[in-house]
């Protein structure tokens, strides 16, 4: 009964006309910045924060939250249409989504992404409402050893989800890990691989590497094989997913939602980890894994549902424990403190109207997003029928603006240019860049948690097997490793990834 009362209290605020308006503004802005590569929700919220100081706190938070989950929607649009994941959570969406677009199913892919996201958004909202207090406590049992073991699982999964040869995938992960070590070491303050330049002291920028490897490399490859690129980009037949798409996509979206909801709660987990995990899960459970990487609808529905669900459930640790799991959540927390609302376990008693209004506004926001995005699918699809001689320079220009904007410096533009060349070579060598990127993201976390665990245990490695959750994760990793060595799996995998 409490549950219903709470939701009713929330809706009484979030359904007020002005709050619906702020929700709409947030969702619209979020979609727009998601579509623009490079400009992320973090920078946008930071820029808009001062504007919200004069607003009613409920309206301010509803709008800021809208920007965040709206960006998850928009980010997949460029990933699908031009293989350009603006944020790390849409990297895997690009794998199959872009293939669908090349086959003329771009409309179906976009609609699937939108529908999967709204499904995830609705379910995740109930998830937050129902389990907030309980789930927040679960996140605290994840300490450094558990995170280390979780990263090991993530890296092994990255190798398995890669297309093509396992050796190449391992190579890509290792290169990613090495790139992740660039910068100032957290423990000692020593500079690693910075070649004496200040620019590398805070490490390589994720956006620069991913734009180089995906966007720049893709453009170069397409220009290199002009004739085929032209035909690939023009055919867009249907906008609505087929019956078959629904049959395969719906269960994938449900699985992605559940996985994403759980992973979103973990501090540091978030949307990226959720989408990667959802992709490997889909590949595991699929009846015909050979379709993955060639435009499998599950490869879009699963990760898209997962990243949206995770984006929403990542509010749980921030609201109930005052633990922001990422930069955007930290900003949201800052915005609340400006209005003298203190996040933490007391929020459910002290600021109940605000809490429930925010939660219920997510439901409204998701509906707004789907109403906003489904009609726009046609518009986005038209974008790829623009001749690539016009489209590519335009994409490059937006990329360059985004790259410059990250740190207001041209250094990242050069980094992206170098990784564009690297990406082009990898494409030619038939090496997948996705495992490299995952290695780059997970590598620093892996090292940090490994060294921290050992500092805490005073050098005793048994810390990783003495703790049940950590042990279970390591066993899972061992199973993954063994399964890749088994001859039957290898055969199946080779069939699945056989070059056409």
């Amino acid at each position, binding site marked *: 009964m409490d549950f219903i009362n709470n939701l009713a209290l929330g809706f009484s605020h979030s359904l007020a006309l002005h709050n619906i308006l702020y929700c709409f503004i947030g969702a619209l802005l979020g979609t727009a910045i998601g579509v623009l590569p490079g400009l992320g929700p*973090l*920078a946008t*919220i*930071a*820029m808009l*924060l*001062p504007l919200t100081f004069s607003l009613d706190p409920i309206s301010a938070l509803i709008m800021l939250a809208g920007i965040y989950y709206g960006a998850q929607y928009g980010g997949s649009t460029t990933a699908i249409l031009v293989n350009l994941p603006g944020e790390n959570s849409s990297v895997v969406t690009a794998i199959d989504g872009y293939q669908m677009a090349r086959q003329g199913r771009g409309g179906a892919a976009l609609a699937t992404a939108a529908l999967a996201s709204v499904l995830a958004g609705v379910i995740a909202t109930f998830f937050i409402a129902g389990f907030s207090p309980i789930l927040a406590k679960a996140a*605290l*049992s994840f*300490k*450094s050893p558990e995170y280390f073991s979780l990263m090991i699982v993530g890296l092994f999964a990255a190798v398995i989800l890669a297309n093509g040869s396992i050796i190449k995938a391992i190579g890509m992960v290792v290169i990613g890990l090495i790139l992740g070590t660039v910068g*100032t*070491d*957290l*423990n*000692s*303050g020593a500079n690693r691989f910075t070649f004496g330049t*200040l*620019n590398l*002291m*805070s490490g390589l920028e994720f956006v620069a590497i991913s734009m180089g490897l995906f966007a720049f490399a893709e453009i170069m490859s397409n220009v290199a094989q002009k004739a085929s690129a032209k035909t690939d980009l023009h055919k867009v037949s249907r906008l609505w997913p087929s019956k078959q798409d629904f049959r395969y996509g719906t269960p994938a979206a449900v699985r992605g939602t559940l996985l994403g909801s759980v992973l979103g709660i973990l*501090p*540091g987990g978030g949307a990226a980890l959720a989408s990667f995990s959802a992709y490997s899960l889909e590949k595991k459970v699929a009846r015909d894994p050979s379709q993955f990487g060639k435009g499998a609808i599950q490869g879009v529905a699963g990760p898209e549902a997962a990243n949206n669900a995770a984006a929403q459930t990542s509010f749980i640790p921030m609201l109930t*424990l*005052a*633990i*922001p*799991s990422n*930069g955007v959540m*930290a*900003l949201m927390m*800052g915005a609340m*403190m*400006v209005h*003298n609302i*203190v*996040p*933490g*376990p*007391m929020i459910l008693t002290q600021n109940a109207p605000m809490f429930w209004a925010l939660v219920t506004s997510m439901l409204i926001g998701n509906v707004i997003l789907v109403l906003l995005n489904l009609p726009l699918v046609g518009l986005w699809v038209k974008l790829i029928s623009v001749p690539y001689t016009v489209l590519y320079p335009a994409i490059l220009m937006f990329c360059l603006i985004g790259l410059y904007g990250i*740190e*207001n*410096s041209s250094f990242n533009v050069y980094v992206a240019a170098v990784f564009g060349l690297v990406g082009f070579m990898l494409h030619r060598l038939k090496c997948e860049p996705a495992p490299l990127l995952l290695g780059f993201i997970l590598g*620093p976390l892996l090292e*940090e948690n490994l060294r*921290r665990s050992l*500092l*805490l245990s005073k050098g005793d490695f048994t810390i990783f097997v003495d703790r049940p959750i950590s042990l279970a994760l390591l066993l899972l990793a061992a199973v993954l490793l063994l399964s890749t060595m088994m001859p039957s799996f290898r055969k199946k995998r080779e069939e699945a990834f056989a070059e056409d």
Partner: protein
Amino acid sequence: MVRGKSGEIAMLKKYLASAAIGMMALGLGASASLAQTYPDRPITLVVPFAAGGGTDIQARKVADGISKALGQPVVVENKPGAGSLIGVQYAAQQKPDGYTLLMMSSSYVTNVVLGEGKPYDPAADFEPVTMVSISPTALVAHPSVKAETLQEFIDLAKAEPGLINYGTFGDRSQPHLSAVLFGAEAGLEMNAIPYNGGGPAVTAVVSGEVDMLMPTIMLVQPHVESGALRALAIASSVRSPLAPEVPTFAEAGFPFEMGTWFGIAAPAGTDPEIVKKVSEAAIGFLTTDEMRKEIEGEGSVLLALDPAKTKAFIADEIERWTKVKELGLF
């Protein structure tokens, strides 16, 4: 003739003198009018950290206030990287015409004094304008730590050297510096456990992975209020309005002051008149009741210092950390 000549010379002298006076007056007039017409175009406030961080939030508030007082937009330009070195160096290289200002925070001094190399000189490369505020450090412990007071904590850490693990936001971050300095002054042996930033470090002390953390009070206040953390002392001369029940270090029997501060500077060579104008605008804005309340609401102490006092503040900081460096703690 002679008379005439000398008369001519006299006249020439007179002419030259008046011309010189005139030119001086003109020069003075030009400089005075430069400061008088300042600002006639937008001012840039360089923030050497990413948008959305603590320094950025302070900077955007200050930018808004200066802009209203001076009647020109103040644009915040984020130049993050290398733990603020990139942004500070960038600001140092800009024209000292008052149209580029720098938002300083504690790392402005510690980065250079405790770091390797000398990317800039914190005493000479900038003109201090105004100190904004200082956010005092608190010592918080997980409730499982068997110490209700600061003295009990010191006794506990002394009884078993190496028992206490404390979190940091990375090597030479403010909580790291605070804990090392406090530990050295109290004669404690504790282990630093680095986390990548404030969020993860606070999580770690709340979950009990580390025993202690020395962040600014604002960061942990909700946890102190809910009882998830125990605040043993606050490192300022007065108690914090955010947590009035927490004693100062001095009250708890161990005088120790430390905090994260924010301030404004201009590249060296900026016209003192302009520095004064910006400083007065900032102080006028900071000392309004509304701002004072907001800053205190964040658990910070309002400083609002004029250029001379700001200069002395920075010099004190440099001296303090140079001494720490000489102790060989870092």
